[in-house]
């Protein structure tokens, strides 16, 4: 109400200027700016501030120390191992998904025809169910006397393999969870390869493999890279797979961060860890994005 009154009868010259300066674009951006400010920027600032606070305290904004970071880079600290597990598993996940998703993406574009829509929906469908619920579903599948084990026994085999609570099944869980995030950017990337160019290359004598290497892959690369980046960023921060499927046979970095914030009540240490991981991922993302021609990908050449 006060705002409306102000707009009708601005009282001071400064307010008039202010009202004029705010363009339509700025006004439209207002809601999202507020949301981002509160929901995104504020926690980031808080985390950043906490990472410089006295360890094991809540003296945020009142103390400044580099002790938290010094602790992380102390050779005696084993946090680097969690970090290595996270990055390593994320890289593995990306590699597995690139190989698994490419044929599906190709099929969605060129083979499945009128079934493509339905198949896409089937790949999206699991996203409607909470990740944890789906992972517990896999636990029931792999667990001793579970779906796999029980079925094999019933069929007269000696029982299923004991894969649950191993690093291998953690990787499986990650590949399973992040498949759609690789598949859809990749499908989009492949869809942007004009049919004409493939025909032209073939007409100029090129065989399947050469067309794939010279035309399809380079032209689909923006989509593939976006898919890889997305899955990598998500997989580095993954924690549920290692916890639920992997049974903490490996500790990932986000688990360490969680522990610092909960059991050990050491918010400054957790914040410092979070900052290091964020900076690492942000740097990687920026490098990858700088190599991407988004304009071309969106057909705005």
């Amino acid at each position, binding site marked *: 109400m006060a705002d409306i009154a102000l707009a009708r009868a601005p009282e001071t010259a400064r307010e008039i200027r202010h009202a004029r300066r705010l363009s339509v674009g700025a006004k439209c951006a207002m809601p999202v700016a507020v949301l981002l400010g509160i929901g995104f920027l504020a926690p980031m600032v808080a985390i950043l501030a906490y990472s410089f606070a006295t360890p094991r305290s809540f003296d945020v904004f009142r103390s400044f120390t580099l002790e938290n970071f010094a602790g992380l880079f102390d050779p005696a600290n084993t946090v680097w191992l969690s970090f290595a597990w996270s990055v390593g598993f994320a890289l593995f996940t990306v590699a597995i998904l690139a190989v698994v998703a490419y044929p599906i993406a190709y099929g969605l574009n060129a083979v499945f025809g009128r079934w493509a829509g339905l198949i896409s929906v089937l790949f999206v469908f699991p996203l409607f169910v909470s990740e944890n619920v789906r992972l517990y579903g896999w636990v029931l599948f792999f667990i001793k006397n579970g779906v796999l084990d029980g079925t094999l026994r019933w069929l007269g085999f000696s029982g299923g393999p004991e894969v649950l609570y191993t690093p291998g099944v953690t990787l499986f869980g990650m590949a399973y969870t992040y498949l759609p995030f690789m598949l859809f950017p990749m499908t989009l990337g492949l869809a942007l390869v*004009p049919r004409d160019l493939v*025909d032209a290359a073939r007409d100029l*004598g090129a065989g399947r493999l050469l067309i794939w290497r010279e035309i399809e892959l*380079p032209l689909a690369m923006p989509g593939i890279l976006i898919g890889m980046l997305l899955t990598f960023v998500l997989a580095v921060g993954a924690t549920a797979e290692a916890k639920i499927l992997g049974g903490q046979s490996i500790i990932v970095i986000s688990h360490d961060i969680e522990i610092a914030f909960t059991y050990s009540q050491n918010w400054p240490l957790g914040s410092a860890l979070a900052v290091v991981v964020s900076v690492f991922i942000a740097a990687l993302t920026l490098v990858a994005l700088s190599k991407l021609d988004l304009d071309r990908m969106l057909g705005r050449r």
Partner: protein
Amino acid sequence: MFQTIPADAPPAHAATALPILQLVGVRKMFGGFAAVEGIDLDVREGEFLTIVGPSGSGKTTLLRMLAGMDQPSEGNITLRGELINDMPPNRRPTCLVFQSLALFPHKSVGENIAFALKVKGVDAATRKKRALELMRVVRLPDNYHDKNVMKCSGGERQRVALARAFAYDPDVLFFDEPLSALDYKLKKALEKELKDLHRETGKTFIYITHSLEEAMVMSDRIGVMRAGKLVQVGTPEEIYGAPVDRFVSEFVGEVNTLKMTRAGAEWHGVDVPGTFTLAPPKDGAALDEAFVVIRPEYMRFLAPGDRADNRLSGAVYNEYSLGSRIQYQVRVGEKVMLVELSRAHALAPGASREVTIGWDAADAFTLGS
């Protein structure tokens, strides 16, 4: 590979007139619909043949079958006597210049041109040498070799596409309306260049377009397609001077068509009143009903005392300037007749709009359909 023939050499097709491509009863069905229906055609070695027809006439489908991207449902396509119906495009000694040009956007001008050589496993140094040679043939400057192909203008891209096709050294080159997206002036210039390149390289060119004007400028022979059938194949002079039916005559340009019926030895107009003198039809058929096709440029205004085989009275109700020529629309009863005159013979500004127009029987076509 390919050598440049001096510009003063006679066209290659004049020396060797063997069919290089032969189509016998070629049909293409899509479901129950025949996109191409029973085409018989001999393409001579070294000729510039243009297939022209309105959109949906099946000309692109025909071209895709010739290039190997579609297979005929029936009939045979032979190249130098070898049946090539099912031969994939990468094994055919033919190359298509696409309507979209289909240049590889992530490759430079040189890489685009040398693509066929890379496929053949030619080394990088030879590829570059050859690309530069071809760039000279299509009049592209040498420093374009490393330029991104997407940064080239429309006309330059056209030349890149052409050079890329030449690099494959095909026996037959196909063109799918590659000039349709260009502005008029550039299009005219490239039509002439394409004609020059055809003569210089001595290759067989098969060109598809919906524009008969384009076909007239470039072709040795023109095939007119309608609803999946080749209606007429002939030199530009034959197509222009002796169209087989109204469709071809109307496709060539704006014409006046009058329906006539015969009563004994006299022809009576159906759309316009009067009796008319008709030239006998070219095929000598005895007709009771005929269409007379008169090109606007063969119509003239008659002053009292002027003689003409046929005459009509009407009123000028519109005139358009066509640059050096003027087109008049003359209403004769319900029918609108077109009269096209050079500016020198234009109606005087103050002259009466009530006019008599006329033409001679020998200047018009008498067609049965």
